[in-house]
Structures are given as C-alpha cells and as structure tokens.
C-alpha cells in the first residue's frame, strides 16, 4: 500500500461523512426500537398460536406464518421500492432518513418475529407446565415466564437483527435513503471516489463489530448460571 495517497483522506468531506454516520445511527436506532416493539408481540403470537402450543390456533398461525415468509423472501431492495406508496402515506416522504425507516421496519419485523418464535420454543416446556400447575394465566406465563426465561436468547436475536438492519440501512441508500449507504452510492459509485466507499465500508464494519460485541456482552451478563 505504498502508493496510497494519504492526502485523499484529508481532502475528504469529513463533516458530510459524520452527518451520514449520524443518519445511519438514527435509522438504525429508530428502526431497531420499532422492530423490537412490533416483532416481539409478533413472535409471541406466532409462538402461542402454533399447533400444540398454549393457545393453538392452527389457521391463524398458518396465515401469520405465510405472511412472515412472504416478507422474508422478498429481497430488501424490492421491498424498498414496493413500499414507496405506504411510506409516503405514513411519513409523507419516501427519501431520506424518515423515508427509509418504514421499509427497514417492515423488512426487519418478520425476521425478528421469527427469531423470537424460535427463541421462545427453546424455553423448557416443564417450566411452562409448572406455571400452569400453579394457576398462571396466559399473560402471566408470557410476561413472567417466557420472556424472562428467554431473555439471553432474545438479546441475541435483537443483536442479529441490528446487524441485519445495518446492512438494510446501507441498501436503502440505493433509493435515496440517506446515511452511509447513500454516501457510498453517491460518491463511491456514481462519482468513482473509491476512498469514500472504503471509509463508509470501514465505518459500517466498525458499527457491526460494536453491535455484536455489545450484544454478546449483554447476553453474557444476563445468563443464568
């Protein structure tokens, strides 16, 4: 790398990169919160309505499960475009940070919901049976047994989802979503400024690393042994 021109780094528009990073963090934070807020109930619903489970509703489960699969099988880029009318309806714009959040959430909720369902299935049936034997009602089982017992797994699922969302935020740059992905597309791709591309990729990488290690640390702290 002897021919690397360090002046390029100095000549780059750092304030813009900083703003883009902040945009990415905003999109990530807001969409992650919304994803957990919507995906957790979805995952619980999938879990309790599955055949043989606490409130087995096989037909409802089949419908939900099908919808989740449909949304998960759509490539995110396509989802971005398909959702433009909905995004306009909900937030009034389909571009920028605000415009990206709707497709991000719609893309991530089914993903996170399915992860939550799987994590809940790992909760010991015996513990659930014991709480039923003690007279627990379904909301009590969900709030006092399922979610606390599954907490490490749920944090793990949220971490995986956050990392996936970082990728999605970058992709949303393609349709003018804002943030680091947008920067990479506009400078790195359209104006052939490879160094901007390299810096954005490096920043995304650091972000993913930070998210993963923070998630791992949280999981370790709340393990039960």
């Amino acid at each position, binding site marked *: 790398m002897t021919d690397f021109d360090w002046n390029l780094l100095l000549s780059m528009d750092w304030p813009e990169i900083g703003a883009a990073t902040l945009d990415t963090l905003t999109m990530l934070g807001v969409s992650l919160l919304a994803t957990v807020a919507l995906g957790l109930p979805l995952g619980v619903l999938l879990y309790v309505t599955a055949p043989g489970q606490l409130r087995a509703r096989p037909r409802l489960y089949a419908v939900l499960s099908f919808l989740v699969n449909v949304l998960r099988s759509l490539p995110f880029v396509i989802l971005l475009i398909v959702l433009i009318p909905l995004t306009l309806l909900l937030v009034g714009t389909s571009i920028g940070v605000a415009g990206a959040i709707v497709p991000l959430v719609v893309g991530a909720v089914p993903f996170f919901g399915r992860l939550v369902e799987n994590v809940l299935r790992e909760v010991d049936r*015996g513990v659930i049976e014991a*709480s*039923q*034997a*003690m*007279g627990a009602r379904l909301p009590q089982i969900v709030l006092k*047994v399922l979610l606390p*017992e599954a907490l490490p797994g749920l944090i793990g699922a949220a971490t995986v989802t956050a990392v996936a969302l970082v990728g999605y935020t970058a992709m949303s740059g393609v349709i003018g979503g804002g943030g680091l992905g947008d920067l990479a597309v506009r400078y790195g791709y359209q104006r052939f400024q490879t160094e901007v591309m390299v810096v954005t990729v490096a920043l995304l990488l650091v972000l993913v690393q930070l998210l993963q290690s923070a998630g791992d640390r949280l999981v370790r702290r709340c393990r*039960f042994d």
Partner: protein
Amino acid sequence: MIQVRDLTKHYSHHGRRVAALELVSLRIDAGSIFGIIGRSGAGKSTLIRCLNLLERPDSGEVRIGDDALTAYSERQLQQRRQRIGMVFQHFNLLRSRTVAANVRFPLELAGELDAAQMDARVDELLALVGLQDHQHKRPAQLSGGQKQRVGIARALANHPDVLLCDEATSALDPETTDSILALLADINRQLRLTIVLITHDMRVIRQLCDEVAVLDHGRVVEQGRVIDVLLQPQHAVTQSLLAETGFGQGALQGQWRERISTPVLKLTFVGEPALQPVLDKVGRETGLRVNLLAGTLSEIKATPFGQLLAGVVASDVAVSALPDIFAREGVRCEVL
C-alpha cells in the same frame, strides 16, 4: 378427600387410538399419602396431570373436597390450581430467578399478598425446607436435592390442600431421595396435607405412602394399604415390581423351588411380632424345625415387618395346623 371416578383418556398416536387411562377410580383420604406406581407407559404421568386438569380426561370425574374440577371452567381451574401444589421430576424451576424469587413466584401469580407479606412467607417456606442460606442463589448453582427443596417450597407457597409429586425423587441419588422423602413425610404430618405421588420405585411407596394403587396399561390393577399390597401382592405387575427391589418372595420363584420337596411356610410378621422370637417359641411347643430359605426384615413407613420362607424339616403337629398356631402369636403363616 380426593375422588376420581371412571377417568378415561385416549391419545391418538400415528392415527391409532391409544388408551392412556381406562376407567380409573381412586379414593384418596384427606391427610394421607397416596402412591401410584407403575412402569413407564402405564399412564401414571397422565393420571397425575388429570388430577389438576393439566390434561383433560375424555370422560370421568375428579373431585377435590367439594370441588368438582372436571366441571370447572379454565378460569376457575386456574384459581383452584393455586391451592394444588405440584412437584416435578426435573424440578422445573425458573432459571432466571433466584431461589427466593422462585418461591415467591406463585405468590405473585395469586396476587393476594403485598410485597412485605410475600417476603415473610418466602422466609417461612425457605426455613421449612432448610434453604435459608441459599436464597440468593440461582437454580444452576444448586444440587439436585436443593433444587427439589425449592420446588417443594414453591409448591407449598399458597397453602395448598393437596400436593402432587410427579416422580419427585427419580432424578436424585439414593441418599438425597431419602432426605426428600423424609421432608415430604414431615410436611404431611405438620401441615396435614394430602400428598399424591407417582413413582416407578417401590422403595418410595414403602418409605412414604399409606395407600398405593398399581397402574398397568392405564388400569388400576391393585389398590389398598401399602402394608397389605406389599406383603400380599395379588397382581403379577405388583409382584414383579416388588421382586425388582429384592422385596418379599421373589427368591422363591427361582429354579431351586423345584429342588425343595418339603412343605414351605411363608411367615409374615408385622409390627410387634416382628420383634419377638415367635419362630423359636412355636418350635419349642410343636417340635417344628425349619430350614430357612429366604427372609426379609425391614419396615414399611416405620412399621417393622419381617417375612420368612422356611422349609419344614420336622414337626410334631400336622403342617396344616401350623397357620392357626402362628396366628395366635400374631404371625401370618401360609403353606406354599
């Protein structure tokens, strides 16, 4: 009192209907310890889960005291279950909670006490099972016996009138099993609590229970006081369960039975006679001389008993007269 009438439950297994319970009827006295024994697959587990309706029977009735549980709605059942304790083979503690918080859990579910009252009740229960020093630990840091003590404390939290034990000692080593059985006996005495347990281990029945029902292929094949069933088992399943624990007459079913040509007496001593030299006394009076073939000396729920198999070598009286003579000494004698 718990009354179970004509309980029937079927499962469909690969499209076939399999009977888990077939017209099971039981009467369990309040304050007694009732054991249900059977091999795996006999339906024990289904039966005990039908007592608190964790599993709904296809037909039949379960009454605890005056409460006809089988007629209850799900909501009523949830309410009633708070006063039916249950203890599990694999403890089923919440891993996310400390020992104290596990015991507190059913109190939170019931929602009848304020925080201070719950804490006081938790302390009381932990003292009862001897775990005061471990209250801040998590289940993962406890031994099997300690986990089961937490399970028992938790089951007793809401002052139940019935305690159901689902193979409560099957995952424990023999020494720990003894201490848990002693704890259950203690609780039964102190709290006048009815205990219903299922097990595949005859030792549990012998050490703890007042009455026993033997379950085989979903049916009750034998039922009665433990001392009667253990000493005079009628059904082949009971006999084989007893033989496995080296108890009773199992030895005589061996090949060598054919090599003994003399009459064989089976002598059963229960209670006081087990502590007296009855055989010696009868021998002096009747000239009876015996060849001891097999014997057990043990106790059933603190009642001493003995059982001897003796070949008659010589006797001044007719062998057929011996049962009456032994009966006068309080010993049951059968000529085999």
